[in-house]
């Protein structure tokens, strides 16, 4: 269902590559929540998708354990093959799939907000939406 929503957003926003970027960010964030926030006790994940003419905001909220986002291996540098680790790679994918990423711990909630600015995207053409590094 999430993929269908992302496909529709890509089509409606006319933004090439938006679907795979949203899906990749969603998958990695979801994995992190399951593996870290809810590592001990399972819980719910709230997914919010906000779309306007300028940006798409994907927000994921959980009630699990918090984490230090800045210290979680979230480098902007492409990881070298010999130092690729699953954890750091997931955050790298989120950061590079989206325009900006913020993390907040509010009361007992983790809020991960991932934003894609639509002006960064190439327009959807009749060609495939994959392979455009700008979007």
């Amino acid at each position, binding site marked *: 269902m999430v993929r269908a929503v992302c496909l529709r957003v890509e089509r409606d926003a006319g933004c090439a*590559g938006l679907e*795979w970027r949203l899906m*990749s960010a969603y998958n990695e964030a979801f994995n992190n929540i*399951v593996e870290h926030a809810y590592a001990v006790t399972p819980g719910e994940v709230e997914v919010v998708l906000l779309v306007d003419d300028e940006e798409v905001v994907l927000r994921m909220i959980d009630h699990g354990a918090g984490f230090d986002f800045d210290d979680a291996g979230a480098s902007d540098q492409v990881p070298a*093959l*010999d130092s690729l680790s699953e954890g750091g790679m*997931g955050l790298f*994918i989120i950061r590079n799939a989206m325009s900006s990423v913020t993390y907040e711990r509010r009361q007992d909630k983790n809020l991960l907000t991932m934003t894609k600015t639509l002006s960064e995207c190439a327009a959807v053409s009749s060609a495939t939406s*994959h*392979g455009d590094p700008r979007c």
Partner: protein
Amino acid sequence: MLKHELTEQAGVVVLRVQEENLDALTVPEARLLVEQLVERGGIKVVFEMTAVKVIDSSGVAIIVSLFKRLRALGGAVRVAGVSGQPKDIFAMLRLDQALPIFPTADEALKGF
């Protein structure tokens, strides 16, 4: 069990993943498969993923792990059939420059 096909052609193992998702749900089973391949020592493997439509960091990690471990044993891995979202993720991580990637398994087998 992870849907896959394992064949051998001219001494090269061809692993065809037949899942649409190579992600956190399917990787635990893929990891068992990788362990079995690594136990065979320095073999050559073509990792064919035409069927894979979506990959995540755990899927990428299993391919990189296979590549590095077999290389350390004197073996080698070639990846084939990468397209769509997996191709975009490979490009983002610059794995398209670090791993030997071929359009098809047949092309990966040539001269391997």
